[in-house]
């Protein structure tokens, strides 16, 4: 699956969990500032991503991950 298709899959998870418009889910978007996501929202988003991509993300791996791009790279790295 290419990056664009993977990102669409990621975007669908964010739209579902965070209740935001899809066009706001861009790599540079900050979860707190641009997507109004608090720490509980992030926990739920991670659970959604784990289910959708069949991956496992440890809480410690989320340190410093505060943009869509950083989170997407984390997910992508798990698929390699």
């Amino acid at each position, binding site marked *: 699956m290419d990056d664009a298709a993977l990102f669409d899959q990621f975007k669908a998870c964010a739209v579902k*969990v*965070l*209740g*935001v418009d899809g066009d706001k889910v861009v790599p540079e978007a900050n979860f707190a500032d641009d997507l*109004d996501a608090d720490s*509980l929202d992030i*926990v*739920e988003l991670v*659970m959604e991503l784990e289910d959708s991509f069949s991956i496992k993300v440890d809480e410690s791996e989320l340190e410093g991950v505060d943009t869509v791009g950083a989170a997407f790279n984390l997910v992508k790295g798990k698929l390699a």
Partner: protein
Amino acid sequence: MKLGWSADGEAIESPFQVAITGVGVVSSVGIGKEAFWSGILNSSYSGSRLIDDFDPAQYMNVKEARRADRYNQLGLAASILAMNDAGNPEINPAKAGVWMGTGVGGLTTLESQILICHGRGPDRVSPFLVPMMMANSNAATISMKFGFTNTCQTTATACAAGTQAIGNAAREISSGRATIMLAGGAEVATTPTAIAGFDNMTAASPTATSRPFDAERNGFVMAEGAAVVVLEELSHAVARGAHIYAIVAGYGSNADAHHITAPAPHGAGAIACMERALEDAGLTPSQIAHVNAHGTSTPLNDKGEAEAIDKLFGATRPPVTSIKGALGHTLGAAGAIETVAACLTFENGIIPPTANTVNIDPEMNIDVVIGQPRKLGDGAIISNSFGFGGHNGSLVFTRP
């Protein structure tokens, strides 16, 4: 309402009267006061008492709806309808509070997350389980919606919760602590497990028919719903030219201290509760024009309540109605929905009939309104709620 009593036992009158200036209701017979009122004027109902036409998107955004249990969605919607009905009064947020009632809170969320925990494991349980299930989530959501920073509390006294929440909120105003309170109740306890629990304790009607005070009554019908009223200090309401539905003149609450589900024999707790509410209002039983009964359609409740009404009011025989014939039983929301019904009874000058009731139990010496609505006479309205656990609440409303 009374501020309290002096050391000599003298009643101390409150300088603050409590007006109802807005009503919001989300019920199975209609959403909004007009639909609700025409719904409870019908004389027969059967089947589901779920609210099929509720659209959360009309009251909150997608994310807010996703983060709110259905009971909270209904309660929030009712609060918005009530504030709109009151003309969205401008208020110092520190003088405005919230007091809601519920039997259990976010039961739908709890039940679904229990299934997830046991089916898929604890690491799949939503991080929103706790804030969505907690019984105070609706009051908290309403306070955030309107930015009200005065007291924000929840009363969880089963089927008495809605009435007791409004009574407690009214006391916040009559004691001078608040100027406006949003108060009411919300309930969605219609999950498979909760329904099974009520069925197995034989409290629910096996024929799914609610017919309060009827000789053939056989239990209540589970329902979902919510109602909120805007309580406002009278002079504040008058100064802004608000429409006033009613005055909350008195509130009584007590405990049967008898049994976890069965009411005290011969309506003893209910009599004492109504007496407290009348004393708080400074009224005598003969000044009551109408009783909006708890009337659940269970054999024991209706028997005890009828006996209590008969003993307390005697020859006055105020007309009695239970809107649970139409609505079924919304548990912790019931008293709040019935408060809205009392407001609209004053407004329209007629008492809705007790739907589905045809043959009044011959053991009951009370005047139940059945078939057609009846003209409301002069006087006050008393509304009762009695909850599992022996919690009793009565509110007395007078005309503005």
